[in-house]
């Protein structure tokens, strides 16, 4: 790997890490506006993180070392996943044949430890969240393979960077395919990042939460790490979504930045709209929702395979 | 004359001696002496160190050499364990039986040897009937109702059956009418040489009658009942004797007629009949195994099964025939172990009901393990011999013109194994709830020694696979006109 590529990869990664909370803030702000509130400033997530960083850490007395290392592993895993994403047309820091699998599985590692950490407390609230997380994640992974994976299978490429580069927006069927794929990714993002309608990040009722309830007993730096990694995760999915619409043929920074900003904004708007107009599903019907998304994926795939 | 006197006259003489002697110990010693001599001689004849030249209606060939060794071996072990068996306290009723025990055994040996070495169908018939007669009182050893009933049934059924075999022999004479064989007085060796001239109609009839008649003694279904009753109610050494050698003696008769039939046009028919008999036997064992409640009966049915397999092997021919010959050896060894150990179990638990036997492995560890191992052996699990012989039989079946037989056989054997295993394992493992069973340590007796040696023998013969044995069996198959 050449040094410049490496440096550029690092820069891409830093962009992701830096802008992740901003995206969350943007979504929250938009959502507030849509609901007629003023809302917190866009940069509020940064302040929140800063506040958490300085707080005292409290661990539950029944917890073990899992609670201690889990936030760390979570962050590292998410960051490594982020390092595989192409920002613009740059080759990401980690890019090799088959990194799409690593991408999925490394997020799985993060989830594994998050669930363990939740169960570590020995409280039924965290257990509830962990159970739900485990159940929904089971369905989320197939969606991933039906969307990004399907492009990989069709193009025969196994590196995320190359997969995105293979997207050609000059074929009508392909465009339809990509659009439906992006819908799937959107659903995936909603699930994985615990947004509405799967989960309500702003609720205050423990019984109805998924992600938030899992970190109920974390505070201070631990909570900081969790929150930060969940911001990054949301941003990762945002980038996955963005990259569908990215004309990789054009290698110009200006265009890249403009498109990036535009698409990200559009995405945050749509996310905010969805969060505004829908209410949270019943827990029991979430698997159906996910299966629905899977079905879309299969249908999409069938259309593509038999028309192109 | 030496061989004749050692093999035939000596046992007969000792029968008389045993009648005169009162002490069971002396009788035992004499019988041991006779049996070891017999065994040594059979072995010598088998190996070929001694070329026998028998008078009258007797002669030897590869088949009788092999069978002689088998029955002699079985007899030796049975006599060996008999004394310790007779000394067991629980036999108050059978004082009378003890008195005639060795006498009858000696007579049995005499009759059995005569049957196996006979070169004449008439002689064979007389001797075979004599074995029935010597065994019948031994079945009644326990002097209880079941034993009496078993003895009656066995005696009656086998007598009728063997009468039918006699008819078969007469048919054989008819078959030779008007041919050069007429007047040759039913010598096997003559018949075998010129079998092709025999009248096929009578030959078929002869085969049917001899096969069905002797089936009562071999235990081929559906004539197995008397045999099963007797084997399951006789004392275990006698049961071992019946399963291990008496059935083999009867099988010899069928083999003789089969050998005569081999070069003729009736051959295929005889093979079919044997296959049918074998399959029915397997099927009967298969049915019984679903409703076992008496473990000695289980073993008796297992004998039916294995004699059925042997009949199948003979009927299929080719390599299956060779497998069947091996199976004869292994089965007789294996059945001894099974019956000896079953006898130990019976002594401890005083019941033949499966439900009354529990936790054998804990109560009688040595017997239990031997029983388990011999069950594995009889289920054709290597390295025990039956594995090899069954393998050959299976192979023969698969490459015969009727491969479907193999699938039927395997299906039946599989369920026999499953159900037999279920029963035996229940006996071996289930928790002991019977308070009356004393938990004393099992003593090492001569019967344990015998079982261990036989099991080792069972492995050793299979694994070492002596050249001499193989040559002998190949000779037999050559005598039967089998091309490999």
């Amino acid at each position: 790997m050449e040094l410049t590529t490496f440096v550029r990869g690092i820069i891409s990664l830093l962009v992701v890490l830096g802008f992740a909370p901003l995206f969350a803030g943007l979504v929250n702000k938009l959502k507030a506006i849509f609901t007629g509130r003023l809302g917190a400033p866009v940069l509020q997530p940064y302040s929140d993180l800063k506040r958490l960083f300085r707080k005292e850490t409290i661990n539950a007395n029944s917890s073990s070392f899992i609670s201690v290392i889990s936030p760390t592993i979570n962050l590292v895993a998410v960051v490594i996943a982020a390092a595989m994403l192409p920002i613009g047309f740059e080759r990401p820091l980690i890019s090799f044949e088959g990194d799409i699998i690593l991408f999925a599985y490394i997020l799985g590692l993060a989830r594994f430890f998050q669930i363990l950490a939740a169960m570590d407390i020995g409280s039924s609230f965290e257990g509830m969240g962990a159970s739900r997380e485990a159940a929904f994640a089971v369905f989320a992974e197939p969606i991933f393979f039906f969307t990004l994976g399907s492009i990989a299978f069709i193009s025969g490429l196994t590196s995320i960077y190359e997969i995105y580069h293979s997207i050609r927006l000059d074929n009508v069927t392909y465009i339809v395919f990509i659009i439906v794929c992006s819908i799937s990714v959107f659903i995936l993002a909603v699930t994985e990042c615990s947004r509405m309608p799967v989960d309500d990040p702003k609720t205050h009722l423990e019984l109805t939460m998924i992600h938030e309830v899992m970190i109920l007993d974390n505070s201070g730096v631990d909570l900081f790490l969790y929150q930060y990694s969940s911001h990054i995760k949301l941003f990762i999915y945002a980038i996955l979504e963005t990259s569908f619409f990215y004309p990789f043929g054009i290698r110009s920074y200006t265009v890249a930045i403009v498109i990036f900003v535009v698409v990200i904004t559009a995405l945050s708007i749509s996310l905010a709209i969805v969060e505004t107009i829908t209410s949270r599903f019943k827990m029991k019907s979430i698997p159906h929702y996910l299966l629905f998304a899977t079905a879309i994926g299969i249908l999409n795939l069938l259309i593509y395979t038999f028309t192109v | 004359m030496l061989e004749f006197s050692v093999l035939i006259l000596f046992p007969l003489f000792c029968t008389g001696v045993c009648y005169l002697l009162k002490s069971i110990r002396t009788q035992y010693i004499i019988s041991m002496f006779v049996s070891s001599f017999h065994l040594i001689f059979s072995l010598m004849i088998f190996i070929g160190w001694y070329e026998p030249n028998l008078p009258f209606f007797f002669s030897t060939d590869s088949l009788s050499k092999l069978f002689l060794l088998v029955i002699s071996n079985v007899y030796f072990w049975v006599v060996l364990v008999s004394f310790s068996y007779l000394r067991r306290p629980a036999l108050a009723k059978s004082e009378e039986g003890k008195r005639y025990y060795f006498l009858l055994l000696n007579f049995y040996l005499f009759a059995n040897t005569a049957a196996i070495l006979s070169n004449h169908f008439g002689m064979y018939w007389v001797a075979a009937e004599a074995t029935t007669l010597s065994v019948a009182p031994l079945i009644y050893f326990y002097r209880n109702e079941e034993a009496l009933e078993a003895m009656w049934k066995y005696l009656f059924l086998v007598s009728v059956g063997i009468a039918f075999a006699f008819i078969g022999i007469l048919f054989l004479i008819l078959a030779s009418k008007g041919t050069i064989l007429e007047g040759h007085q039913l010598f096997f060796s003559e018949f075998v040489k010129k079998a092709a001239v025999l009248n096929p109609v009578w030959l078929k009839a002869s085969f049917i009658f001899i096969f069905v008649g002797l089936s009562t003694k071999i235990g081929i279904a559906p004539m197995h009942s008397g045999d099963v009753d007797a084997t399951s109610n006789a004392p275990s050494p006698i049961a071992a004797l019946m399963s291990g050698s008496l059935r083999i003696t009867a099988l010899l008769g069928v083999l003789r007629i089969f050998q005569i039939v081999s070069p003729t046009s009736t051959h295929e028919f005889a093979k079919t009949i044997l296959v049918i008999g074998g399959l029915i036997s397997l099927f009967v064992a298969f049915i019984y195994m679903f409703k076992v409640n008496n473990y000695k009966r289980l073993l008796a049915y297992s004998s039916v099964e294995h004699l059925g397999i042997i009949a199948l092997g003979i009927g299929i021919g080719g390599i299956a025939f060779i497998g069947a010959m091996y199976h004869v050896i292994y089965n007789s060894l294996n059945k001894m172990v099974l019956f000896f150990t079953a006898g130990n179990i019976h002594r401890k638990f005083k019941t033949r009901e499966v439900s009354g036997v529990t936790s054998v492995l804990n109560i009688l560890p040595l017997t239990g393990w031997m029983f388990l191992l011999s069950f594995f052996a009889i289920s054709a699990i290597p390295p025990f011999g039956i594995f090899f012989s069954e393998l050959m039989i299976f192979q023969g079946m698969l490459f015969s013109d009727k491969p479907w037989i193999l699938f039927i056989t395997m299906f039946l054997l599989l369920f026999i194994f499953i159900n037999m295993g279920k029963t035996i394992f229940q006996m071996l493992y289930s928790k002991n709830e019977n308070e009356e069973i004393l938990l004393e340590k099992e003593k090492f007796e001569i019967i344990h020694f015998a079982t261990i040696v036989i099991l080792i023998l069972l492995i050793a013969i299979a694994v070492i696979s002596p050249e001499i044995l193989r040559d002998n069996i190949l000779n037999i198959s050559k005598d039967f006109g089998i091309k490999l």
Partner: protein
Amino acid sequence: MVFIQSCSHSIIQLMIGNFSVLASLGYKLIKNIMQNVLSILFCLSLFYLSVTSRVKAYVTVLQFQGVLLTVLLVFPFIGHFSIYALILPATLFFVKVILIPKYIKKIILDLDIKRTIEPTIQQITFLLIIIFSMTIIFIISNVLSKSTDIETIPFASGFTAIAVGIFVIIYRKKLIVHVAGFLVLENGIFLFGTAVASELPMMIEIGVLLDVFVVVFLMGIAINKISSTLSGFDVTALGRLKD
């Protein structure tokens, strides 16, 4: 009864037929005639056996059959008499006419067995079965005799006796009658054997006789024991051994 008549008529026809054909053959002819006559007598004894309901009649029939067989054996030696040749008939006579019937009688007396045989089916049905099988056997024998040189009548009579023996065992309950049935069967085989040829060496024949005697002897002991321990003389007492 009409059926029996017609049947016996045909048998006599057959016999006479043989008679006329073999008329010129001297000794062999006489032997043949005698053989046939004795066989017919044998068959008649079988009929008697099937209709009688007394146990003692069985013994008498056995004795009678024994005499017939002895005569049959002695007959060939009329021309060239020798003591040696008489050993077998003498033994036969001793065993089948004296020893065994006496022994059975003794058992009957000792055990005080009821005199009737307690059949399981009607006598007439039994007779019909026997006649039916007899007819079949005769027809088959006649067919077979065309291809092989066998004496049809002794052959068929012997075989009928075997069948009757089996049927007696199958359709009667008393154990002692079973023994009698077995002996009828043995007699049948013997008759049949003489029909086939006297191929068997004498030693063997005597061995066979001895065997039969010992079998009967053992059966007698067994019946004794059964009546004392199981208190019964018939098969219903023997039902302990089940699968």
